[in-house]
């Protein structure tokens, strides 16, 4: 094995990229774009204000105060809610159109029923096709109403009893967090996963297509008639694309930490090492699979097989430990599962690289096995 031949291939790849502006953009601009969108969306969710259409049809007998009044005042005072007063028809239409997330309707006999000792019904209308959004909106409204219920009760009840009613409904949830803190946001939680996905996906895509091109444009034939061995070729590629993958990881990490202000507790260098181990595997997997494609389209066709299952199973949507046993077994075969394990351990729980040795070891092992498999598929006999 000749190091100088390996470096010749590595240097060639780096030189080629200098003039290949599209690929450079794919490596450095695309991740920033995706992370920006992810960051923006998650941040918007965090500071999310629920839009409420308010319909007040409460009819009052002469001389009575509205019991809906204090509830409405309280809704309006809630900074998590944006209240617009509308007629019933307009409110329903607005919810249907998605302009308002929820309509809160006080019927015409709200005060009367309540005074008569019956249930006061507050109607809420949600669009409902997105269950999580609907329940989010209802929760926001429900919390606000529960908060002001006491005030209303006091107005209805005779003064003597009203003293007993607490200021607000005595419901409080106390949560204990083992890791992170109350201000650990959704974005902080998902950032490590997205770093892993984007790195793996882009580098895999780029390597498999580049290596495939080596075959289709005939340069592989020339390299095969030179002293370069198969393993030298694969290692040269691994270092060349690994170089760009590492740069990409640096850019992506700096962007998420300093621009998106994602909080992390572990060591920055540890995060970088894990990302590096993951993308080296992606390079070698790309070379390996390019052997089974005849053209660029066929290389792209590997994405649904290689990338999507990893996105679904490696912990982004559901924690691996909560999946059915057989799916867990499948997830345990995927490098992204280990990368996310290690990255969340380091970034959120602040663990050291030593503590995450197992997933790191698996990632490096994956890269090594893929390199050897790739070398066996790069045949002398190109036929």
């Amino acid at each position, binding site marked *: 094995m000749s190091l100088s031949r390996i470096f010749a291939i590595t240097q060639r790849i780096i030189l080629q990229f200098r003039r290949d502006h599209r690929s450079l953009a794919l490596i450095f601009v695309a991740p920033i774009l995706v992370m920006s969108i992810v960051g923006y969306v998650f941040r918007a969710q965090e500071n999310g204000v629920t839009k409420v259409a308010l319909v007040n049809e409460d009819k009052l007998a002469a001389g009575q105060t509205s019991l809906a009044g204090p509830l409405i005042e309280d809704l309006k005072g809630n900074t998590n809610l944006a209240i617009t007063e509308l007629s019933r028809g307009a409110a329903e239409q607005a919810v249907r159109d998605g302009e308002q997330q929820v309509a809160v309707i006080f019927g015409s006999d709200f005060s009367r029923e309540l005074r008569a000792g019956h249930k006061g019904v507050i109607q809420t209308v949600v669009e409902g096709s997105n269950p999580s959004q609907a329940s989010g909106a209802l929760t926001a409204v429900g919390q606000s109403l529960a908060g002001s219920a006491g005030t209303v009760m006091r107005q209805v009840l005779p003064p003597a009893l009203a003293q007993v009613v607490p200021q607000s409904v005595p419901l409080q949830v106390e949560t204990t967090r083992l890791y992170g803190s109350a201000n650990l946001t959704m974005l902080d939680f998902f950032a490590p996963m997205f770093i892993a996905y984007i790195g793996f996906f882009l580098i895999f895509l780029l390597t498999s297509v580049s290596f495939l091109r080596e075959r289709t444009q005939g340069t592989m034939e020339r390299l095969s008639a*030179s*002293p370069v061995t198969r393993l030298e070729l694969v290692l040269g590629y691994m270092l060349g694309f690994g170089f760009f993958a590492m740069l990409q990881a640096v850019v992506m990490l700096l962007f998420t930490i300093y621009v998106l202000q994602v909080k992390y507790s572990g060591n920055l260098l540890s995060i970088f090492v894990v990302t590096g181990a993951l993308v080296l595997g992606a390079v070698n997997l790309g070379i390996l699979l390019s052997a089974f494609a005849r053209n660029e389209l066929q290389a792209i066709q590997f994405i649904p097989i290689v990338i999507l299952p990893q996105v679904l199973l490696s912990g982004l949507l559901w924690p691996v430990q909560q999946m059915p046993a057989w799916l867990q077994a499948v997830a345990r075969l995927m490098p992204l599962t280990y990368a996310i394990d290690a990255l969340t351990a380091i970034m959120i729980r602040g663990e050291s690289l030593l503590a995450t040795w197992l997933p790191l070891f698996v990632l490096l092992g994956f890269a090594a096995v893929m390199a050897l498999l790739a070398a066996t598929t790069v045949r002398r006999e190109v036929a």
Partner: protein
Amino acid sequence: MAMVGELKEESMPSDMEAAVEATELVKQFGEVRALDGLSLSIRRGETYGLLGPNGSGKTTFIRLIAGLVRPTSGTLRVMGYPVPAQVDRVLPHLGYMTQLQALYNDLSVWEHVQFFARIFDLRGARKDARVRETLELVELLARKDSPVSTLSGGMKQRLSLACTLVHDPQLVLLDEPTVGVDPQLRQQFWGYFRRLNERGVTIVVSSHVMDEADRCDRLGLIRYGKLLAQGTPDELREMGGSRNLEEAFLTLAASRSPEEVTV
């Protein structure tokens, strides 16, 4: 580089040995028999032309010499070494120009030739000197910083040749090097080949252009994966009974039908 020296000085078999010695070579690709018992010998330092129609087995033979395919049966010795068994000993001294213009478009001319110099283990000052010499030979030195993608077709072909020659190979395989090349450039190419030949380099060139064939020291006519006839251009003209090489070739091809040759 150490290996290059070693091979040249001691372990290179005697000069008397043929550059390429093929005996009863057969190569079967599935149903297709690309080579069907080809036997021929190419001397050191000569320019040997492989003539034959498309699909006659010329490219397969060249790829066998480069160790890119394994013969189904028969033996092949290249520069004294059995191929593909010991092709690793041959490759450092072999220059192979493929039919396809196989180039990296995103490199500059200099970077491109330098890459090939480096994978053939040239380093440092010697590498730079060889890259320069080779670019001078193919008259591309003035364009050394141009990206390959900006070169004309003829320039690309010359660059491709430079990459084949940069490591100063002893045996050069050229698979239809002048296909799609204008007459002037073809003239130029044969000028380069002549100069290599003068330095003792063995050249194996496949072609189906007859005026090129005339410039070779010896020719082998290949058809249906077999050697139909072999000799100097003049000998072949005599055999074919025509002063025109193309006519001679057609006569020879017709007079020796595959059935006849098989006997």
